[in-house]
């Protein structure tokens, strides 16, 4: 912080104490305050939107990557066990395609239509918050200057130039404050009004991207089905596959190498 900035901060801290104790009157601008509250509501909503949009993409990626790793593992198992009916390979290819083509091809549009616009909108907030902070500082300066004038009038001093000088200062402070206050009061509603046209298209884009993803992923995955035995589907539906899995596990558990005690003596 610069020296001037520091001096200002100290002065303002003093003013805010005096305000609380009632020595300095506080300017109240209801119209502005309403706008600021509305802005806060919008800020929270947009930031949540940003978070969720990002989260969706992350989950989608996590899912496809997990899917791909599973496919790799399964392929490794198949390769190792010598059961080369190739389904593992086809499956791997399918999920790789989902990752490489479907997800990657939707990644760009998702960024341009959903993530980027929302992030860009969010990027306005720090600036606006700066302005809001500055406004409150200027307001405090103005309040302090006005209080000084009041005191000087109440307690006339020998210096005749004091009152006009202080008045001048107060007028300057008021001007700074007014300019910023007016700007914020005028421009905040403008921005708030633009939020719907600004963000609305992203929603539709998001829905469409989801739709596209589901569609392509399904088609690609369904493709693998033809390489599977025709009756596996029934086996799956009837729970027979499950039983197979259970059986295998049971047999493994019955092996001497799994039942042999290892922690006792030896």
């Amino acid at each position, binding site marked *: 912080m610069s020296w001037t900035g520091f001096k200002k901060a100290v002065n303002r801290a003093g003013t805010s104490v005096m305000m609380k104790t009632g020595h300095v009157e506080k300017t109240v601008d209801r119209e502005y305050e*309403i*706008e600021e509250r509305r802005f806060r*509501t919008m800020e929270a*909503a*947009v930031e949540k*939107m940003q978070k*969720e949009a990002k*989260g*969706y993409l*992350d*989950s989608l990626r*996590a*899912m*496809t*990557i*997990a*899917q791909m*790793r*599973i496919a790799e593992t399964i392929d490794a*198992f*198949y390769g190792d*066990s*010598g*059961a080369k009916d190739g389904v593992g390979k086809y499956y791997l290819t399918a999920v790789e395609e989902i990752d490489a083509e479907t997800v990657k091809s939707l990644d760009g549009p998702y960024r341009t*239509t959903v993530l980027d616009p929302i992030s860009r909108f969010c990027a306005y907030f720090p*600036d*606006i918050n700066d*302005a809001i902070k*500055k406004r409150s500082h*200027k307001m405090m300066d103005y309040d302090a200057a006005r209080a000084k004038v009041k005191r000087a009038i109440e307690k006339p001093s020998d210096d005749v130039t004091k009152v006009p000088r202080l008045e*001048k200062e107060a*007028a300057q402070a008021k001007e700074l404050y007014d*300019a*910023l206050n007016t*700007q914020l009061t005028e421009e905040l509603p*403008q921005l708030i*009004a633009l*939020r*719907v*046209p*600004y963000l*609305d298209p*992203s*929603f*539709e884009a998001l*829905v*469409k*991207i989801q*739709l596209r993803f589901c569609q392509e*992923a399904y088609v690609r995955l*369904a493709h693998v*089905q033809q390489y599977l035995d025709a009756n596996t589907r029934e086996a799956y539906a009837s729970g027979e*596959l499950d039983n*197979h899995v259970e059986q*295998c*596990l049971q047999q*493994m558990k019955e*092996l001497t*190498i799994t039942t042999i005690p*290892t922690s006792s003596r030896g």
Partner: protein
Amino acid sequence: MSLRGFTKGVVRAPQNFKQKFNIGQTTKDSVYLDAERRFKELEQETKKLHDESKKYFDGVNGMLKHQIEFSKAIEEIYKPISGKMSDPTAMKLESKPEGIQACEQYRNLVQELQQILKPELEMIDARVVQPAFQLLEIVKGIRKLLTKRNHKQVDLDRYTNTYNKLNDKKDKSLKDEKAFYKAESDLEAARQEYDYYNDILKTELPRLFELEAAFIKPLFETFYYIQLNVFYTMHEHMQGIKIPYFDLQSDIEECFNAKRGDVQERAEAIGITHFSLGKKTSRLPGNNKIPPHHAGQQPYSASTSSSLPPPYSPGSTGSTGYPQEKGAYTPPTAAYTAPAAAPAYTAPNTAVTGSSTAPAYSYGAPAAAPQPVMSPAAPSYGYQAPVASPAPVASPAAPAAETCTALYDYTAQAEGDLTFTAGTVIEILQRSDNPNDWWTGRLNGQTGVFPGNYVQL
């Protein structure tokens, strides 16, 4: 580690060391080694399968959750934000009932989907993640056995070496003979133990691999069908989305751009979205004021007949923007129209005044600029001109010798400005390279600022 385990560890340490550096004799069983290698792979793959199927499960869940949350967030955006409306034109855009409706429909859809998919996803857990976990447990147990077998091998090698050493020794003493017999029996015991574990593993590991293969096939098929079902359900459900609010046929990006139009430009034209930018540029030297007609950029040759500078015309600026300015100035194009249209400037004599105030205002954040910005802008707020603050004079640093000649007459519009007629020679105290800035100069002992484009160096 138990004391017993620790003692064993100490006893085995020398042999482990020897084994590493290939000292002495080490038992090698190639069949076992191959089985162990395969087992290691199996171990890794099983772990991967377990972890990844869990991640998959979380991923699908997360996707649905984020969809719902997103729709909630955008609904917040569609809803009117409470508070008194100050701008009646903004009222219309305030809320978007169709949007809210679409949100609700969409959310219902996703929630429904979540409900439908819930059992499917639970099935991933029950049918894939759990079996994989059990397999992992089995594998862990076998891993322990493998470690044990390796220990036994170390023991065996240790005794073998001792035995060989004693056997090779000629002229055994009585003590040696005793030790020799002991080593013999130890070796026999170690060999039996080792053989037991080694044989079990050798016979049963292949069996395990077989079972594993048998296990993975139905597991994979189960996973595949669950996954297929998940995608199918999502696909069917999303396909059946009958929300008239969305135009689902058109291209994603095209439609997005069409719908969006110039809203980003409009939003960025609002001064406060670039508040700190205005603040930063206002701190640059010479940028304290915007020179009167930098916006218009009309050629001065046109005005040679009259010595007055070309009047400022808001119309031309609105369309041309500030082509010559650096990036910092690009946004105000639209913001610019606002002050130009503001009633504050209707005073008749403002041809010149307006030229200096309007740009200063359009600048984004007048209050952010140091005081001099306010002084020319003052009249527009019905503020008494004489009260205006003295403009700061940032002079001393510049070399004193440089002078310039005025091209046009200029009358001070605020305190701290210089007044001069065409042809006057002004001593430059401080200037920037940009003639569109305000420079500081001295004339007749008076120091003040003047627009750089009014003079010739």
